[in-house]
């Protein structure tokens, strides 16, 4: 499947649909998790990368992996734009995941500021992947502003609460042509599988792996679940009976043309 079914983001092809968040790991575990999960994209908090010590995350991520710097720490569109530009200056490439968060308690994204930042950065040639609260109107605005993907949250960051916003994500998947990457809140491989089989293009996971007893095993479990979900989506899910059909109680006997 990997050879024929690629994740395509702004013309860049990826075999893996698993994006690894790295903010909560020991760096040596990031490397191990990348290998176990077969991840080809790893997020990078720039506020963590800008260090002079041996503990620089850039040294622990294999060179074949695409870095996805995020703008965590930004409270406004302007701050997100500055972080993105700094990231490019530091040689982290053109990909950027927009995170604009004004709320330190639940870390919910500010959709309005996210749209503004997306518009500015897309015009500057960045490949913009905005993290957002799943709202169809906002997703449309982001698409119009030049976003390369849409990254709706499933639940608050770090919560492992699962697919609390599943129906709204599904609406975005159905209505928006861009790849929809589900980001934040996914707590288990089964949830990743569930939203992949609904048509999500990829999954981003951090806390669920970082807090697992065995990080490598959990990373691999996510990898397999995402592959399974994708296969199920491509295969087309079978029908689901939502009600009990009572054929013995006829409702069509009154029709003239039998």
């Amino acid at each position: 499947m990997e050879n024929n079914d690629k994740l395509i983001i702004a013309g860049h092809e990826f075999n893996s649909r698993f994006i690894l968040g790295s903010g909560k790991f020991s760096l040596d575990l990031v490397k191990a998790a990348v290998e176990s999960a077969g991840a080809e994209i790893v997020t990078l908090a720039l506020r963590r990368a800008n260090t002079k010590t041996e503990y620089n995350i850039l040294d622990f991520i294999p060179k074949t992996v695409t870095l996805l710097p995020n703008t965590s720490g930004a409270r406004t569109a302007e701050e997100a734009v500055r972080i993105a530009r700094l990231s490019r200056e530091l040689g982290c490439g053109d990909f950027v995941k927009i995170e604009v968060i004004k709320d330190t308690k639940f870390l919910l994204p500010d959709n309005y500021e996210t749209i503004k930042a997306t518009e500015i950065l897309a015009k500057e040639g960045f490949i913009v992947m905005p993290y957002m609260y799943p709202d169809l109107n906002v997703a449309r605005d982001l698409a119009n502003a030049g976003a390369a993907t849409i990254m709706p949250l499933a639940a608050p960051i770090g919560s492992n609460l699962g697919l609390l916003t599943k129906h709204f994500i599904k609406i975005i998947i159905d209505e928006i042509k861009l790849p929809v990457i589900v980001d934040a809140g996914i707590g288990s491989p089964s949830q990743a599988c569930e939203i992949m089989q609904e048509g999500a293009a990829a999954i981003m996971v951090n806390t669920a792996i970082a807090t697992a007893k065995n990080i490598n095993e959990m990373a691999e479990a996510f990898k397999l679940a995402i592959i399974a979900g994708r296969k199920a989506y491509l295969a087309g899910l079978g029908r689901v009976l939502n009600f009990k059909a009572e054929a013995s109680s006829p409702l069509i006997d009154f029709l003239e043309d039998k």
Partner: protein
Amino acid sequence: MFYKSMEQIKSDMLEQVSNLTNDYDYNIYTENDVQKTLNKELLDIEDLKVLLSPAATKFLNLIAHKAQYETRKHFGSSISLFTPLYISNYCENQCTYCGYNCKNNIHRGKLTIEEIEKEFKAISQTGLEDILILTGESRTASSVEYIGEAVKLAKKYFSSISIEIYPLNTDEYKYLCRCGADFVCVYQETYNKKRYKQLHLAGPKSVFEYRFYAQERAALAGMRGVSLGILFGLDDFRKDAFSTAVHAYLLQQKFPDLKIGFSVPRLRPYIHEHKEQNPHYVNEKQLFQALCAYRLFMPFSDITISTRERAGFRDNVIGVCATKISAGVKTSVGGHKDDAKGDEQFEISDPRSVDEIVDTIKQKGLYPVFSNHIRL
């Protein structure tokens, strides 16, 4: 009574904290209350009361496990490192418990800008990116401009700059923010006004209310984060721990984008100490209970563990409730590069170097974070 130069802002936060604290009777809670709180996902002020009660002590192990779970959820395995640098120990206050008390006959000193840079360089060479600049509380000896120059210089060496100085007016915080400071730490010491008056005999620090509103003024000035602290051992620790958390909670509600931190050291021996001034002794178990209560009540907040605590305690609270630890600490004026220029504020219990602390963090399966902030 406010000094003429002290700004008064419109806020009822002190009244709210005082009312809630006055109403808090920690003896009324039962084991059943504790169990109910531990089964909740999102905690409120009633739960905070329960977690700080004597009834919760029996459940400390369970509370610690829940705290560890929350810490992992919000911070993963990351532990942030920083070090303090005292640039002056001149002080205009007369605080009965403090080594810097202006009546104490200690060796006073203040670093020149050149000396500050030498200290910054020496600290930076240890790999640290996060600095806390401290002064004694004297506007005369350590003016806002002097502190501002130190902050501007710190930008060359550090990604994150915090200040722990005398409380300022909003426009002064704005100035230091422009210079490059992003975080402000203020210790209220105790929230019991009556006790506060007994402990702070003279000087601007004796104005309780001005100090209380320091974090709010810092937030209004655009600082990205504030840290709240008390000194356990000055008064009833359960009430003080409660007031601090409620203060933090109200700040977060008023300024949702403000990063909140807690730092609650215990009173340590200091020069000219009089033992009888420490009747509210807080033991390790009680300190740990308070730290875990903070983690569960505000799981997203930073909790710093002080070098006033022994290494064995510090090593075991990181990752469970604490997320920030100081390393290579000196509480004298300077002393990282050249000989110290002034006496220490208090004795530390954990003199380990940055490398030693980093090794400990790694041995515990945690991840030492040097840089966790971008100055914007």
